[in-house]
């Protein structure tokens, strides 16, 4: 009963947050294909000053044990020589039936999302948006108070593609099966303390929302 009330409350809050938002779809579906939009995808920083291979395997997780589109697996690795660098991994791979269908690499490293979002308990967020669509969300390590990459991989039918990769703080994230709502911030809220010990916000946060509208992910 309590869980139902909580779920309804979350749904209500998310409805309030997204109600009236038109937003912009961040990708489209053409047939079975995911069609990305480049404006929502920035490049990761890669430092090629050292040899990054062979990758050092860290973890392999089965994301989707079995569905009509196959078995999807997540493999995380670190760059060669990056053991002393922050982050749980530098390389994200999605494998379908054991074959790699997506690889992302990032010298800045990916952080445990639970490190920054206290409502999360895992290294990343994996949410089923529909019967054939899943979102896998990572966050980059936050350096120097700069917004770090928020990374969203969409798994749709047999494909997995990077659909969103922008420097954004994740202020909050709400997710359930069929539900995703993220409050993002694209700038750094800087505070300045005066001699009296007061903290004054000098930079207003630039807030955005990214949500699943029932058929596609939208951004505003």
């Amino acid at each position, binding site marked *: 009963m309590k869980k139902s009330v909580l779920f309804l409350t979350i749904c209500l809050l998310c409805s309030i947050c997204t109600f009236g938002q038109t937003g912009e779809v961040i990708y489209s579906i053409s047939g079975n294909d995911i069609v990305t939009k480049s404006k929502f995808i920035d490049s990761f*920083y890669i*430092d090629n000053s050292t040899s990054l291979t062979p990758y050092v395997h860290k973890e392999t997780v089965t994301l989707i044990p079995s569905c009509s589109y196959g078995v999807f697996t997540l493999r995380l690795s670190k760059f060669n020589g990056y053991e*002393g*660098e*922050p982050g749980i991994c530098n390389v994200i791979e999605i494998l379908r039936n054991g074959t790699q269908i997506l690889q992302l690499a990032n*010298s*800045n490293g990916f*952080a445990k999302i639970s*490190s*920054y979002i*206290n409502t999360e308990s895992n290294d990343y967020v994996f949410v089923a948006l529909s019967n054939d669509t899943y979102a896998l969300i990572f966050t980059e*390590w*936050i*350096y*120097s*108070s*700069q917004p*770090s990459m928020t990374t969203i991989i969409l798994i749709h039918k047999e494909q997995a593609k990077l659909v969103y990769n922008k420097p954004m*703080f994740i*202020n909050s994230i709400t997710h359930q099966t069929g539900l995703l709502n993220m409050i993002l911030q694209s*700038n*750094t*809220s*800087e*505070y*300045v*303390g*005066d*001699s009296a010990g007061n*903290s004054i916000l*000098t*930079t207003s946060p630039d807030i955005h929302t990214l949500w699943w509208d029932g058929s596609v992910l939208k951004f505003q």
Partner: protein
Amino acid sequence: MLLNSLSKKSLQFQQYPEKYFVLNAGFKLGGMFHSRANGEVKNTKVTASMRLIVEKFNDSDSVRYFLVTIVGYDKDEKNVAPFSYMGSRKNFEGYMVISSVEGEPLWAYYYKDETRRYAHLHSSVKEKGDSDYMGFSLYSQGIATKSGSYSTGEGDEWCYSCHQYVNFNSGVCSNCGANPIEIGGDDEYFFCPKCGLIIQNCTCPNLPSLCPVCGGYPCTCPVACPYCGDPYCNGECQNNPNPDPGNGGGDNGGGNDDNSNENNGNENDATTIANAALTAVNTVINSDPSGTKRARCNEGVKNAFKAVYGNSATELDNKNANTIVQHWRNSSKWESISKSQAQSYANNGWFVVAGWINPNGSGHVVVIVPGTEINGWPVCMDTGAGMRTTSQGLNYSFGRDKRNDVGYFRYK
């Protein structure tokens, strides 16, 4: 240690953060070097001086004072500075003994060949034998008082068990009954930095403390220069004391020939810096219960700065990260240092910071804290977005694409 009337006074105040003044002994002090090497005994007259150093800490109003006795000679006869507390001892051969006004010898250094080594103090009575030795004695008008590497010569000896001058006429300490402990020779003795007792007799809780740098006790770190903080300093730094022109104080008691750079800068100790970082992080956490999301690196650095130098240290107030770094670059109170120097300075108690200016937005600042470099990176306190850490490798605070643009600074 020798404690006598102090009449000729010279007051030299430094406005910030500490005040010092120096009292010269009001009597003529002389010294003798004594040594035996290869069976040959030498007694050489040398120069000696003594100063009472008083330091006032602005943040706490606390005052500490100690005696500095310097005995030896300088190859550069025109150099009078070696007999000042902060003087140049590049060409100096001799001893500096720092002692409490109660007579407790605290530290002794031996200078020779542009290097400085720790010297163990021990009783002249006990070192008499066939072995080689070196040491010195002091004398003044009407009073012959030995000091430094010999006993006080006043009939009492220093008891390393109860930490007092006592007599051992009965074979044991007249105060605590402990057997005499001979300090010196090839043995090494270490003293609790808190109670001052020889380490075997120390009962202080949690002490002897582990060195925050090397993690051991006794500390195995190289001996740090007390002036520049560089553990590998050969004394050269004292030829360039680099006084802060902004800190010049008035001569409140008449001048003398003592070194006008009578200060050791803003050096603290490693524990002070580490505690300041902890305080700063906790202050940020307590002031922002929403979590770690907000960028408060500037506040963390400011808090740490005040934790060390007091609330009157306002130069970092009302500044964001970019303007703080700009301030470090432009202020004469701050010195730009290299990345490779940062950890060493922090470990020796200097307030060391690092920062990056973002030309397109918010920059970032951190405090380098005492510790051991991690993968070649100094360790730092960071209260930026996503961070509320008292110590982490600097590569956890600055991304690979920004690390070459990070500046390091020391508060002089």
